[in-house]
């Protein structure tokens, strides 16, 4: 097997751009996903059965359908409805955020419910509103417990963002396929992209375990 480093070098700039986009998409996805997920989880924990049901349905539908299908529906159906043309990057951001929000909502709910209910009662008995109690008492404690599963979610998101290549969002996988199409070279294109993904997820894993250790010391 000969490995042609010259074509990897030729695509270097594209790979770099693609990697940056992959990182950007994942970051925005996890950020928006966490914000949406927080509200979905609070919604699901509402006392009113009907309200809670709406959010349960959202979670079930999003978790029960493939990300690729969601991506195609959003790219070819929903985004053109609002922007009057398709936009691969916008569609990817929307699809990744929505998809991540369903998983993150359940992570957050588990985190919140793992905090002893006396904490909420103590906070409320001092006159705090539900939201204040969440913000100052429950979430800071739940955050510590949610960090490992949130990290998992972020890692999945980085890898799942490769699906965006199917709708021509020029992220890492898109350039690997472009390279493969131009030179018919399998190893150079896919091994390189695999290595970059591995580098990204490995770095993230390291960062997360550092963060976890620091939270534990505090």
């Amino acid at each position, binding site marked *: 097997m000969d490995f042609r480093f010259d074509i990897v070098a030729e695509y270097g700039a594209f790979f770099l751009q693609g990697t940056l986009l992959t990182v950007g998409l994942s970051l925005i996805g996890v950020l928006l996903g966490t914000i949406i997920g927080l509200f979905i989880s609070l919604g699901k924990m509402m006392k009113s059965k009907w309200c809670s049901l709406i959010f349960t349905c959202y979670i079930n539908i999003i978790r029960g359908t493939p990300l690729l299908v969601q991506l195609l529906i959003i790219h070819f159906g929903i985004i053109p409805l609002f922007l009057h043309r398709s936009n691969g990057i916008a569609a990817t951001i929307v699809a990744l955020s929505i998809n991540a929000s369903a998983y993150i909502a359940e992570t957050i709910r588990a985190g919140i419910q793992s905090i*002893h209910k*006396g*904490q909420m*009662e*103590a*906070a*409320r*008995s*001092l*006159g*705090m*509103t539900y939201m*204040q109690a969440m913000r*100052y*008492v429950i979430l*800071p*404690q739940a955050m510590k417990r949610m960090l490992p599963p949130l990290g998992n979610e972020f890692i999945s998101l980085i890898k799942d963002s490769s699906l965006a290549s199917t709708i021509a969002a020029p992220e890492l996988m898109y350039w690997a396929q472009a390279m493969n199409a131009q030179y018919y070279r399998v190893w150079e294109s896919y091994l390189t992209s695999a290595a970059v993904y591995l580098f990204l997820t490995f770095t993230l894993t390291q960062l997360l375990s550092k963060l976890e250790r620091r939270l534990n010391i505090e």
Partner: protein
Amino acid sequence: MIKISHLKKNYGKTDILKDINITIKSSEVVVVIGPSGAGKSTFLRCINSLETITEGNICIAGVDLTDKKTNINKMREKVGMVFQDFNLFPHMTVKENVMLAPLRVKNCQVQEAEGKTMVLLQKVGLANKADVYPESLSGGQKQRIAIARALAMEPDVMLFDEPTSALDPEMVGEVLEVMKQLARDGMTMVVVTHEMGFAKEVGSRIVFMDRGSILEENSPQELFNNPCHERTKAFLSKIL
């Protein structure tokens, strides 16, 4: 101060509280005793709306809790609560625990809140623990901090839900001492407890509850020496 009339509470088909009527005056220390399962804790938790009541009325300082227009959060600022298992916030230092509600609910200035916190910590004898986290405290110390935290909101009434039941025996005294001081200062208190010594010494009135009802209420001398109800006699003979 507190007027409770025809208070009823049930979980599904189980009646926890059946028609409770009681009036508590300012500066009164009402001690609620009775066997477990009598509904003592539920009764206390109804007073600051930690439990939703099924029927009846609770008025605190003339404000009706059952009125939909009543702001429960505002009312809770005036009613402090101390729990059996402390419920301190473990991610905050002792000082932050006490300061949190004044800062966030009353929007006090940091300096002002800090000053008041130190006064309160002095009062419960734990000023030297201001900057430690709750996990390094003993049970008795935790409960004294919890009392300080409730007092930080300057409540008109303090509710105590078995404040010494989760403590090692040698730590009960220090918590009761703080509560006695509070009673001497004229705080209106409702205390659910099994500490009969405390009830006799500090209580201005003893309420005996069983199976969701108030069976008997009287001054400590009368209730402990001449209980008139059979259930009260049986209960007291077992524990005294």
